[in-house]
């Protein structure tokens, strides 16, 4: 039989008469939770931005023809030499075509798969950008501009001009910003490109491409897939790469393995290709949580201390309460509810402060050449952080309150009253 009214009113009176100590204890929690929210919003914001920088442009599965030596040399297929020890020197890669054989039917097949959001053909080739007598080596990728915008956020990396212009203009090019700077070109100019097998093609610049990775921007340009096929003198079924985007990134690995087996092509899934990003994200998350938990533990010790002191000061009160019929459990609940009230008030304030600070940071300018799409610090505000933060505040104050209140429960009123 617990009478919450009376327990809470005693807890409230204790807290209000010691308002300074209460405030300090609550502030400990507030700072703990506030910095947790700020840290986690900021860190995950940065993580998401850094991941997006690479992962948004990266296909979940990249399919292409790898130039590599045959796994089995012909001699090992020869039964008569099966028992012998064969050594083959100077193995060369197998002569194979860059083109994906039956590329278009494979795309049609992939797009029928329920897990696949889209499969886009690309034609990749090496070219030279011609500026007078100077030749700059570079890469030209033929794409379907509008689909690339939709699936791989190409639009975020177009500095001037647009993907529509690339789609609609014949013989147009989206030039890497590094090349444009080197050659002093602007949108509307023409640039001459030359494929490896000769010929010169003038292309109209409809925009600049900036990935944020300077080395890439100094070589990479994009054009319409048909334009590249024409430059290379190939038919319109000539495809060198297929980029697949899935609905669920977790399905990338099994699907990639399936494609490799089925079509005898190289298929790289995003996790294999970018394992180091996952590691970076994990470590940053680890740091965030380590710092936050440390802060909350410090706050917890503050509460523990203050409640301990309060219980020593209130020995007499505890003895009286027990003498007039409060059970040990009631006394424990009085001190537990004090801890929980401190945790609740401090926690809610902490959430508000965390939200305020995060929102403030989100307005601070953050301009960097490397990331053209970002102009303020990235902040990722998610309800789940607030739920976690609040639960942690309640949990830590519960633990901090539990031990002192357990002690209060066990105090023997006879000893106090008799002055022993």
């Amino acid at each position, binding site marked *: 039989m617990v009478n919450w009214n009376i327990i809470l009113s005693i807890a409230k*009176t204790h807290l209000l008469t010691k308002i300074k100590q209460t405030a300090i204890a609550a502030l400990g929690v507030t700072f703990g939770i506030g910095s947790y929210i700020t840290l986690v919003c900021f860190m995950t914001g940065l993580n998401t931005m850094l991941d997006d920088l690479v992962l948004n442009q990266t296909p979940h599965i990249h399919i292409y023809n790898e130039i590599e030596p045959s796994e089995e040399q012909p001699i090992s297929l020869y039964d008569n030499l099966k028992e012998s020890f064969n050594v083959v020197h100077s193995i060369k890669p197998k002569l194979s075509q860059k083109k994906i054989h039956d590329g278009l039917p494979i795309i049609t097949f992939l797009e029928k798969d329920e897990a696949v959001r889209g499969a886009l053909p690309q034609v990749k080739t090496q070219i030279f950008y011609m500026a007078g007598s100077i030749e700059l080596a570079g890469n030209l990728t033929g794409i379907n501009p509008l689909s690339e915008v939709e699936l791989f956020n190409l639009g975020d990396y177009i500095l001037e001009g647009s993907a529509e212009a690339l789609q609609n203009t014949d013989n147009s090019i989206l030039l890497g910003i590094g090349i444009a700077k080197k050659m002093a070109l602007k949108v509307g100019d023409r640039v001459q490109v030359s494929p490896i097998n000769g010929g010169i093609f003038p292309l109209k610049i409809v925009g600049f491409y900036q990935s944020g990775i300077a080395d890439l921007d100094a070589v990479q340009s994009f054009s319409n897939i048909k334009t590249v096929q024409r430059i290379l003198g190939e038919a319109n079924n000539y495809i060198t790469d297929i980029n697949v985007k899935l609905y669920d990134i977790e399905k990338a690995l099994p699907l990639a393995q399936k494609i490799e087996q089925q079509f005898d092509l190289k298929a790289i899934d995003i996790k294999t290709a970018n394992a180091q990003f996952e590691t970076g994200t994990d470590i940053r998350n680890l740091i965030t949580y380590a710092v936050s938990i440390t802060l909350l533990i410090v706050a917890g010790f503050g509460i523990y201390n203050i409640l301990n002191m309060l219980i020593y000061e209130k020995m007499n009160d505890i003895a009286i309460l027990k*003498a*007039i019929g409060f059970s040990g459990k009631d006394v424990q609940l009085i001190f537990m509810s004090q801890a929980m009230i401190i945790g609740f008030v401090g926690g809610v304030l902490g959430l508000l402060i965390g939200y305020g600070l995060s929102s403030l940071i989100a307005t601070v300018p953050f301009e960097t050449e490397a990331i053209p799409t970002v102009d303020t610090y990235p902040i990722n505000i998610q309800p789940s952080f607030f739920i976690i933060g609040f639960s942690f505040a309640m949990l830590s104050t519960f633990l901090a309150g539990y031990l002192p209140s357990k002690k209060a429960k066990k105090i023997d009123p*006879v000893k106090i009253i008799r002055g022993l």
Partner: protein
Amino acid sequence: MTTVLEAKHINKYFKNPVLFHVLKDINFQVKKGEFASIMGKSGCGKSTLLYILSTMDTDYEGELYLDNKLISGSDSEHLSYMRNKHIGFVFQFHYLLSEFTILENVMLPAKKLGEKSYQEIEHDAMEKLKMLNIEHLAKKQASRVSGGEKQRVAIARALINNPSIIMGDEPTGNLDSHNADNVFNIFKRLSEEEDLSLLIVTHDEDFANKTDRIIQMEDGKILL
């Protein structure tokens, strides 16, 4: 006359620092409306006995009956309830909760019992304060009243749940003679008019001589 409190073969040992037999086979009864006092030298075990009778000390051998019901060996939750409902306490040092007002202090045990509404409890508390002529202190902070007044507040608090028995551990020990007389008169009146049982541990011979019955203790035994 009905028996309110009965002790049968109560034995208690202190185990620290050496085994010491404090209470030796205590047997006695307190009847309804009886005003009894326990006298004895320091260290004869009278306070120890009182705290066993009050149910706060449970480390003893023997049987204790309150309103003819055995309460020895009950769990602490039940003992707290019994203490709350049936026993009123007055200590030597006027233990009030200093952060609460006088009225709140008096109401506290009744709120804990939770049998009446807030308004009824407040009304009862004011009645008790009026009976003890301290109703003008009701809204004062407990830390701001004098010693004699505090003791009367403590008595009001002991009375709030209309207990079967009031126990006191030298309730006048810390008061001047005027206030001590005052407290004695209140006890006497409660015993005569309200038919309340009282069991008071005291050193004060004058006080004891005015009570209905003196229980004399020596070396852990009751002298008859």
